[in-house]
């Protein structure tokens, strides 16, 4: 079956141990993540090495730091591929980290061994996204929920069975369903079974990895309510991973927004939703369609383009390739939209993502050895410019762009890119914005303190 399932059971290794002391001192977080990195390597097989291929790092999680205090719910939100699930799995040590440190109740998780590790496995549990593949189809639900108790050798047989009955009842299933198999249950019920299994060892900390995204809304609401009740009843600490902003808003105390392996904004849920700072957070919030009748009239600023590849993330701020607020150089007189357009064209020239052969109408220009004949260059540049820009550019910028495109006529990609870089290089690509240490922090140059002088745009000029 699924690897999720194997991981869930193997995560609970087979030794009995005394519990970790989880009574953390006042104010100390239960979980502290520092600069956590997880890279996956491609082209890393023996054959690749023999052939001399360089391994490629997929930077799934790249330097993430946050804390989770006891009894709170931290939300981790982001689009698919941003590394939120990998973060959850790595901090539970279901994946070995590339770098960084995770402390659970003051102890480094990655240095735990033997009984300490077993104890950690009991204290930290996980509920997976897909209730269909995370339950063993050949086990009855009674066995599924009892398995953690068997593995950790908790109590006598009869006690275990009693505990399973209580758990099932607690998550809203009836005891007479003990002997049934997962396929007899609906998605919502299976997710309840997954939750009961996670609770069997009375953990302190639960990672909820998209617990409701496979469910219908009415069932999702049941499960969310259940999770809230359980938290209050058992003093649980949650890390909720979700792509659904409304779920995050509903259930979390604090939220971290992830983009391409990094946290771009973190803060208390109310503050972050009412007053989002990072342009990505703003765009994300604006993109969610509301279920109200004024939705059609609502103004939306949607993002263009796709998330770049984590194999080769953009320099500086990773969001700059889509950011509507990318910061122009200080002395440059340009309006934001034109600058955004220019930056997009720059990126395409840098990645050589323009086909020169197809410029103009029907083989108008013969590109031989990558060059256009001398006489055709002005026409070629004009045709290419029309294709790249919807609106005519202001005269000053028009000149610069023409110079760069003239280089392209001879396939001098690097020269073209260099011309544009000297004119238009942004602070967003030079410097990586740091995430501050405040309760509500944001990793964006618009709010930078050190780089303030480079910030040519007033953050408030962009409506939220």
């Amino acid at each position: 079956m699924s690897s999720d399932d194997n991981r869930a059971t193997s995560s609970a290794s087979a030794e009995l141990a005394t519990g970790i002391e989880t009574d953390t001192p006042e104010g100390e977080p239960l979980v502290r993540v520092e600069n956590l990195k997880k890279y996956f390597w491609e082209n890393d097989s023996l054959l690749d090495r023999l052939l001399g291929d360089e391994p490629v790092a997929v930077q799934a999680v790249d330097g993430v730091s946050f804390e989770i205090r006891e009894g709170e719910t931290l939300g981790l939100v982001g689009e698919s591929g941003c590394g939120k699930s990998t973060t959850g799995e790595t901090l539970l040590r279901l994946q070995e980290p590339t770098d960084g440190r995770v402390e659970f109740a003051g102890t480094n998780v990655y240095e735990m061994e033997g009984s300490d590790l077993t104890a950690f496995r009991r204290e930290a549990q996980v509920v997976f996204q897909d209730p269909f593949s995370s339950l063993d189809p050949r086990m009855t639900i009674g066995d599924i929920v009892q398995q953690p108790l068997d593995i950790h050798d908790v109590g006598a047989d009869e006690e275990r069975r009693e505990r399973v009955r209580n758990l099932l009842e607690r998550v809203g299933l009836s005891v007479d369903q003990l002997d049934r198999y997962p396929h007899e249950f609906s998605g919502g019920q299976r997710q309840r079974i997954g939750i009961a299994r996670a609770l069997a060892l009375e953990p302190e900390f639960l990672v909820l990895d998209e617990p409701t995204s496979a469910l219908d809304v009415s069932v999702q609401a049941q499960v969310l309510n259940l999770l809230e009740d359980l938290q209050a009843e058992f003093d649980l600490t949650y890390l909720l991973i979700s792509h659904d902003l409304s779920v995050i808003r509903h259930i979390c105390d604090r939220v971290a927004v992830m983009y391409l392996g990094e946290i771009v904004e973190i803060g208390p849920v109310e503050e972050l939703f009412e007053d989002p700072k990072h342009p990505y957070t703003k765009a994300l919030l604006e993109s969610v369609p509301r279920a109200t009748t004024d939705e059609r009239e609502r103004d939306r600023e949607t993002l263009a383009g796709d998330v770049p590849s984590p194999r080769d993330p953009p320099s500086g701020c990773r969001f700059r390739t889509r950011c509507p607020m990318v910061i122009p150089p200080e002395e440059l007189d340009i309006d934001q939209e034109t600058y955004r357009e220019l930056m997009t064209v720059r990126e395409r020239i840098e990645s050589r993502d323009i086909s020169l052969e197809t410029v103009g109408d029907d083989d108008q220009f013969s590109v031989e050895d990558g060059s256009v004949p001398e006489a055709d260059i002005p026409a070629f540049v004009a045709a290419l410019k029309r294709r790249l820009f919807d609106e005519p550019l202001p005269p000053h910028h028009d000149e610069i762009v023409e110079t760069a495109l003239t280089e392209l006529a001879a396939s001098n990609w690097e020269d073209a890119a260099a011309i544009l870089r000297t004119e238009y290089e942004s602070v967003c690509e030079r410097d990586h914005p740091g995430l501050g240490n405040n309760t509500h922090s944001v990793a964006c140059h618009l709010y930078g303190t050190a780089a303030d002088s480079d910030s040519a745009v007033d953050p408030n000029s962009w409506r939220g």
Partner: protein
Amino acid sequence: MTDTDDILRVNDLSTRFFTEQGQVNAVDELELRIERGEVFGIVGESGSGKSVTARSVIDLIDAPGEIVDGEIWFDDAELAERVREDAPDAVDGSFVDLLSVSSAVRQSLRGTSFSMIFQDPESSFNPSLTVGEQLAEAVEVQRRASANPRSTKAKTDSAEYSFGNLLLSTVLPSQQFVTEESRERAIELLELVGIPDPVERADEYPHEYSGGMLQRAMIAQALAGEPDVLIADEPTTALDVTIQAQILDLLDDLQTETGMTILLITHNLGVVARMCDRVGVMYAGEIVERGTLEDVFDDHVHPYTEGLLGSIPELGGANGQLEPIGGNVPSLLDHEMEDRCHFADRCPMAMEDCLDHPPEFDAAGSEDHTVRCVLATQSYTEREALPPNYFGDAERPAGEKHAEPAHSDGEQPAERTRTTISDSGGESR
């Protein structure tokens, strides 16, 4: 049928699936009226029959499914002329009943009159052909179909598709069908749906596209035949919110530009609010409430609509404890369905009258607002309410032998188990 505003009228549509477990009433005597140029939304949970409704309209029901009853009247004067001779009964004014004409005629409407976009763009494209070729193929098929609307023979006689070409196409599968004109049109279509550099992108394979771009490409493919009605089945469910916003904007723009009619199937009430003029809420194979967006979102009568809206966590502010609907989506197996309001067993306001299957009542609000609930005609009274455990364990399907007679502690199990039928109907892809 004089009201020329309608483009599609569905009467008494029943689609059933004949499975090993029994007959599944996926769509049950459904009525639908869609106006030309509007966006009509069908919203419901998984297994409510919304996708089957859409597929029934475009005649894409596969065995073991079958449209057993009903009429689908489509307004197309030209088509009416064409079929009048062969099937006079199937024509009423400019309307044609698609279920009474031959399947060849129905097929000829696919692409040109009806077109469909699916939920999962990754699995809807052939991974071994470039996106451009697949689009060009769609264009080519439409082009030939419109050139020879009645004859399938003429298509194969064309010199462009000689035996030599056929042989060549077996060696080079990509050479099949695609002519230069179709290719150019394919690139135009890619441009229309906002794919940057359509010329280059046309030569890329589906795996080189991102999910959002592929969904755009699928929309382009659906537009190849300039359809009158576009059926969008969960078009954004597989996408991230920022990409979802892009795709919805695109559909909106295309709709304004071409004036086509869109039948949008979704489970997301936010998407409905963003896109639709009128909306129908589906539950257990029936539309339980329909009307304009305002009718359904603000003046709803049906407790199911209420529950659906109450289940969504609000983005604007914490709305305390959610108010979910208890229980699960019901089984649609014929022998398990009773002749009563199908929602009664989950309904917080079930009354004695709910034991009769309710007709559609007119409700306050716009003319179009109807609701399949007795609450439209009477208000809820405690006196007539059904006892809380009325549907209790008696409702359990026969196959569940472990069911003990009763929960004597008086506490109702939060969910009654039922074998789900999700793999036999509904969301099958």
